[in-house]
């Protein structure tokens, strides 16, 4: 049914454009459905993501359609992405990419359609998890913040919006300390 809904939704959007109502104000981030598939996340993808963004700070968020707290997190992420579009965010859905329509629909709903998004594309999920974090047992959502000096901060569960906001706007070590209150030093 969801897939059907997604198709219907696309049809509605396509129809609106075809009949000449693009002026309805459908912004790219709010309603337009990204028709491209999610990038296939396979063995080696995580290293590829790290390499690609190695010169900047970025936040990787792992999520799933089967995870109610993930939706709360996506909502906050969408709002912060609108506020700080320059902040590098990478989303990885642990659902198989055969649920692409549902995944895209959720991303679109929360204004995250334009964010770099991946979807698990290997059924051997233990291996994919292990490459991300060998002590990750599958709980969702979870995030990894790639900070300077090769530091990675593991963040578990749905993050409070205030905590995410601190991450998004951080540009100093002072802010970093506020984010990472548990860092052993």
């Amino acid at each position, binding site marked *: 049914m969801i897939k059907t809904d997604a198709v219907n939704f696309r049809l509605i959007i396509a129809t609106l454009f075809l009949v000449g109502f693009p002026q309805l104000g459908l912004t790219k981030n709010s309603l337009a459905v990204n028709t491209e598939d999610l990038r296939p996340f396979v063995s080696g993808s995580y290293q590829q993501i790290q390499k690609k963004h190695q010169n900047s700070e970025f936040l990787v968020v792992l999520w799933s359609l*089967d995870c109610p707290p993930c939706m709360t997190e996506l909502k906050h992420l969408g709002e912060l992405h609108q506020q700080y579009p320059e902040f590098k965010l990478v989303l990885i859905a642990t659902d198989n990419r055969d649920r692409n329509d549902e995944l895209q629909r959720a991303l679109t709903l929360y204004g995250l359609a334009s964010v770099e998004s991946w979807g698990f594309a290997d059924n051997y999920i233990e291996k994919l998890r292990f490459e991300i974090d060998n002590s990750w047992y599958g709980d969702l959502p979870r995030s990894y913040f790639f900070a300077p000096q090769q530091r990675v901060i593991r963040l578990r569960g*749905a993050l409070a919006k205030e905590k995410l906001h601190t991450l998004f706007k951080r540009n100093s070590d002072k802010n970093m300390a506020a984010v990472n209150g548990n860092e052993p030093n």
Partner: protein
Amino acid sequence: MLLGKYNHHKYVNGLLLPLIILVTYALPAASEMMKHKHISSMKYSEESAACDPAQVAPSLACAKAPSAEFDNEGQLWVIWSFGQHLYLSSSSDKGINFSTSVRVNLTPENIAARGENRPKIALDQQGNIYISWTRSLSKPYTGDIRFSHSRDGGKHFSAPVTINDNRDIITHRFDSMSVTETGRVYLAWLDKRDKVKAEEQGDNYSGAALYYTYADIYTSPHADTYAYNGNIEFQPNMKIADNTCECCRLAMVLDRNALPIIMWRDIYEDNIRDHSLVRFINENKAAPSTRVSHDQWQINACPHHGPALSINTDNVIHATWFNDVAEDESTVVDNVAPHTLNNHIPGKHTLFYARSTNDGATFSEPVGFGNYGHAASHPYVIALEQKVFLVWKEFDGKETHIQQMRSDNGGVSWSHSTSIAVTTGQSDHPLLIRDQSQAYLSWQTSEEGYRLIALKNNALDTFQ
């Protein structure tokens, strides 16, 4: 041979019922029957083309999340999902060869069939077969609890019925089932009707609620007439607990009074996801629940890890669960390839076992087990008199192992952990079942298909 046993069943020998069965089920079911062989080379995931329901015939090797039980005669019964149908297969040689498979639901429907939320099977002393599952609905996290049964040895099944008496398109999921020797069916599940109600009134409600019902399928005065037309009369749904975790399997066993004991991942205070247990004073009255784990794992997330329970004739309750308290909520991790990390950290565990000798009022100090650095997960427990087996999953970077520990003294002390099965592809949660004298691992993997592996009963020589 096996079916002959059921031909003598008092209900099957009636005049009316065979006629109903013939007209309603036997003819369409006959066309649904198919010869099934164990095809080990096929992938069980429907994501792979080799198991695409649109392209291949149903097979256990391609099934998602099968569950199994033995009957009193030692026959293995496996319920499995493929496409939008449930199928039942049986084996008289401990899972080497399987019989013809039979469709349970003749009308297709979406069936939840993943590790934590999977179809269930139970049998009573007469060999009647009971099946429960969650039917997925149109919105995320929504479902209905479904039930069907067979009184002729799995040849025919009753029309599936929905058990939850709230029919909103909301969460009624994660069914758990126990059946007494005389055929009373207990069902419990996670239900969000109270959350919806609270939120409509502007209140917050964390998690879901634990609901419960039961039915006496064969002792009801109307049993002969309603058994196969779907008009099964379960008791009105009863709420057992509020604010439970919403995405973890439940565990249910029967105590010495044939009443359920249910364990679930609960929510304490502010998102502390510890476990609770409830037993029943009678079938209509639950005792106050008790807290089993005190790990204080605080997380606003879906752990996707429910507990497991087993109980023995000595009434000792064996419980196992996952709580990832070994890892802080926010920590700096080394930005290095995982395989270069020191995997095993002694004393650091996420899996726990505890036992209760007073009907669940209190539990022993939990024993931690499993290799933390190998993502030890999804523990299961089964007791066979004084022998108690624990199995769980680990991944060492290349292979997935099912690890096992055994106790020969009712869970007081434990052997070292050993690997009893391995795979190099996708795999299901490990489950344990038992017959009269032996415990078995029931495990589905994409590379090897369905496997039933006997757990060794020989004397232990090493204890922790």
